[in-house]
Every structure is written in structure tokens, then in C-alpha cells.
């Protein structure tokens, strides 16, 4: 169970990304933020977000309609 969790379920583009950016501010470097989303577009978007911002996408998993991302704050 991750220590820092952001529930972005029910939100559509670009809100999961914006909220993740905000949430990362309070996550110490090296620690992991877990984001849960129901927006299918967020799978590609979180990969792009991490690629651009230099944070590490540790995992990206799908369970039913819920997408979970583990983002390491770099």
C-alpha cells in the first residue's frame, strides 16, 4: 500500500495530470505517488507526463475500469 495516494477516479483529461502534478509537490523525492484513474486516456498521458517531467513511471496497471500508476518523484 503506497503512502501517497491520489484518487482521480471519475475525472477526465487533463484533470488527473493536473492533480498528480499538484500531489507530487507534497511527496518527498524518491518516494512513490500512487494515482488511480478511470480515464482510459490517462494510460498514455501518464507515460508522457513522466517522460516529460523526469519522474519515473514505476508501474502502470489496469484492473477493470481502474488504471493505477506508481510514480516515483525524482
Amino acid at each position, binding site marked *: 500500500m503506497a503512502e501517497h495516494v491520489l484518487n482521480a477516479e*471519475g*475525472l*477526465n*483529461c*487533463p*484533470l488527473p*495530470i*493536473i492533480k*498528480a*502534478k*499538484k500531489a507530487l509537490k507534497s511527496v518527498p523525492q524518491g518516494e512513490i505517488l500512487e494515482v488511480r484513474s*478511470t*480515464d482510459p486516456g490517462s494510460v498514455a*498521458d501518464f507515460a*508522457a*507526463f513522466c517522460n*516529460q*517531467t523526469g519522474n519515473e513511471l514505476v508501474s502502470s496497471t489496469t484492473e477493470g475500469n481502474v488504471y493505477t500508476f506508481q510514480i516515483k518523484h525524482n
Partner: protein
Amino acid sequence: MLDEAKSGDMSNAKSMSIIVTKGTLDWAYPPFILATAAAAMDIDVTMFFTFYGLPLLNKNLDLKVSTLGNPAMKMPMMGMHMAMPNLAPMIPGVDRMTTTMMKNLIKKKGVASIEDLREAAIELDVKMIGCQMTMDLFEFNKEDMIDGIDIGGAATYLENAVNCDINLYI
């Protein structure tokens, strides 16, 4: 070599500018979505609001959608899609109905309101410039607009855009 010299500033931050020319509810989305997403991705963003896009800087937003000029517009309805003929807004009440339908869809699908996106843009330090000429032309006052914006003209925009990695006109 030249590229290295050009990017010799401390960061390798990317930048984007958007010229915002349309102020209906539907057309307000692309610039604000792109601006907030880009700012969240550490891209420096400048939005230049001109012509019908300028009222998007007003404190009070009362945005409407019109089917006019959107010939491909289709609204989901009972599992189908209903075309919105270009002549429909001639009929009184049709634009109001389309606006209500759009606002209901926005809420139902978890899409942010333009007010929320604009607020997020401000929090993410998106720079917003209102067009002076448009203010003069359509008699808009800075007092009616949100705080923290700049007012400028074409040269102000261009000075910024010439250094941007992405320049969009919406």
C-alpha cells in the same frame, strides 16, 4: 553547436504559446486543456487572448455554445448521435438548449469546467496576456477581468512566441 549555444540557459525547460481567438463554451476547452496539461508537464505557457477569446479573461464567465459554424457537431442522444444543423440557432432557444446539453454532458463525464481549468492555469503559473487592441475595439475594461493578467499587443506576443518550442493558434 548552435543548438547548444541557444539552449545555454540554466534549464532545458520547454515553452508554448497559444493564441486564443474563440470564446464559446466548446472552443474555450482546447486552449485551457492544453495550457494546463503543458504547465503540469513543466512547460512554460503563455496564452494570448484576442478577439472573441478575450472575454475568457472576464471575472464572470457566462459561456454558451452555438451550433453555428460547427457543421460536424453531433450530440449523443439515447445511444445515437443527433446532428445539429447550422441553421438551428436561428430558432429561438436552440442555442440555450445546446448549451444546457453540453453543460450536462461536461458534468456527467467528469470534464472540468472552464472556470476550474482557468483557476488551475493560474495556480500553475500560466502567463495570460489580454489584447489591448481588442479591449479598445469591443470596449472591454481591465477592471472586469481577473487579476494577474498582462495587457499587450502583437509585438508583446511575438517577442514571447519567437522563443517558444510550440506556438498554437486556436
